[in-house]
């Protein structure tokens, strides 16, 4: 058999799942961010796969999409880390199950 679109999609799906699991289950804020990054990469992988297995003009726009996603991901991480820093200054912790002043 040949490696086709489905392989990449499955791979992306699994990667997305793992990323989601990390994001949903990690105590540490940075850990959650890592999970998010994985999810984004999964999306990118999916997109690139699509671009490979589709006509040229589409291929292009999808790849552009990927570029944007990567950029945005970087921005998000930057802000996220900054925030984590602020939280740490206030609370001496960045584990999300202890930053629960706001509840109820």
């Amino acid at each position: 058999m040949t490696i086709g679109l489905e392989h990449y999609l499955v791979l992306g799906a699994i990667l997305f799942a793992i990323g989601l699991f990390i994001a949903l289950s990690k105590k540490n804020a940075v850990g959650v961010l890592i999970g998010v990054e994985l999810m984004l990469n999964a999306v990118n992988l999916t997109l690139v796969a699509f671009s490979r297995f589709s006509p040229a003009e589409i291929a292009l726009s999808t790849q552009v999409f990927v570029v944007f996603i990567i950029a945005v991901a970087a921005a998000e991480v930057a802000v996220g880390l900054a925030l984590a820093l602020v939280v740490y200054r206030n609370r001496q912790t960045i584990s999300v199950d202890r930053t629960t002043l706001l509840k109820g």
Partner: protein
Amino acid sequence: MPETIFWVILFLPLTAFALAGLSALNQNLQRQLPAWNPRYPGALQPLADQLRGPRLASTPLIIALAVAFALALINLIDSIGLRGLPLEIGAHQLFTAGDLTVNLGVRIDGLTSVMLVVVTGVSLLVQIYSTGYMDGDHGYRRYFAFMALFTTSMLGLVLADNLLMLFAFWELVGLTSYLLIGFWFHRPAAAAAAKKAFLVTRLGDLGMLAAMILIYSRTGTLEIAAINELAEHGAEAGMFAFNGLMIGQTAMTLFGLGLIAGAVGKSAQFPLHIWLPDAMEGPTPVSALVHSATMVAAGVYLLARFFPVIHASSTASDLIAWIGAGTALGAAILALVQVDIKRVLAYSTISQLAYMMFAIGVGGYAAAVFHLMTHAFFKALLFLGSGSVNHSTNTFDMRKMGGLRLAMPITFLTFMLGTLSLAGIFPLSGFWSKDEILIEAWDHNKGVFVLGLLAAGLTAAYMVRAIYMTFFGEYRGGEEAAPGEHGNPDPSHPHESPRSMTTPLIILSVIAFISGFLTFGGEFQTWVYGALPEPHAGKFHWSWGIFLGSTALALVAGGAAFMFMHHRDRVRSWGIDGSSTIPAAQRFATNLFYLDALGENLLARRLFYGGIARVTAWFDAAVVDGIVNHAWRGGLTVASTARFVQNGWVQAGAISIGLGGMIIWIAVVLF
């Protein structure tokens, strides 16, 4: 006679009511606002005082009643001229609602004319009497206001030409009776008695109300004449049908029964008689006018009015005949054991009304009305007499009286006449009317006749007993006037009442003597028959047998009672209490056959109030309202607990996002 006259008759007392009412209000306002009562320049001041004085309440009423009485007499004469046939008088539309048209109109025929005379006459005398009796009472003006209102309503009742109007005034007399019984509302007994009277009669009125809406929904009319014609016309194949109106036999019977219920309530017949004795809490003139002469007779009047209806169904006529007979006897027995003179008279009233009732039942229409009239006079007389006695002894308890015949001769004599008349002694009015009834009963219903005869005998007995205890023997000192109420300051020396009170007594006793003679030649009957759809000349009944029998019985019973009372000490030495024959029977009787206890205590208080009402109220509070409150509180609990779902974790939010999304997708894919 022009119709206007009758409206005048109706509105004269109403005007008096307005004046008396204003004067009563004025009395209260004066106390409230001193500024209300300024000084006037010299000449006006006496006039102002007059206007503010109590006489503004009574005098106009007496004048109004005098005029009304005169008009009523004139009308009666006219009516005699017409042999009691109804005048042709159209009705005035009061209001309409859809098909319903409510009229205001008067029906003038023999029956009405007689009633008019009776009502205005007795009322007039009673008012005159009251000026003396109520003199100095704080509520003097209120009293006459109520009296005026009562007279108005009573006149309206007898004038009404349609059932709705009749019912309206019927309720109004009930109201005034309520107000008058509770006149001395500071006495708990009076307040309670008033309420009891209103409610018990209203229980009967429900029947009348039902009858009214029934007849309307079936025939679409409320005209008394129309209904009577329909009934008179008779039923073919279970349907009454007459010029366009139709109604089934059953409905007609039900209608009759409803009317009977109303009459039974109003006229205090078994089993709704329990209110009348208590009603004696009211001022005595009230008892004389309202609770013996007129209002209680309204029940009889109603049945007389609808005589054809009652006789359109044997069920109804038999029922009322037996109720009447039974009540006549039972009430007479109860009268025998009372120690309160007014209560004696009250039960006697019940018994006499019962006479009229069974007279109606056995078809003695004219006889009933005749007895109604005579009874009105002599029973009013008796009540006023008892009032006169009370006026000087401050009590109604016969055990505290005695020997008054010397101190109060006029009262004694008039009371004596009233008694003889009531006992049916020849040739007083009571004799004629009672004999009429007994003859009717003998002709139509032997069983009723027997009961009636016994009752007649007992009547003589209890009256003689009352007379003896009151006027014979030695005086037993009366009673001190209750604090805060006016009365004879020195009851130990009884004295004759003022002329304002004795005059009516004399007049009434005269009437009580002679009014019986109207029956000669059946004249009276003729007028009254004129009121029926098929008028026919009345005739004068005479039966030696019944004459002798009843008279003898009365004399024997009376004599026995007299001897009994006279030699009370010896009788007591036989081990029997003076006031009765057999102790057990006495207890049974003094407890009013336990009917009061049953009706008031058991049914009303325990069963309804303590049972049904309590459970319903609990249900309403705990269930109907409870559900709401519990739902409410439940919502708040949900809100309080729900908040902990929001536990502040980032992942809680994220998980709910993922879960929500996936659930949606699965749902979409599956369905």
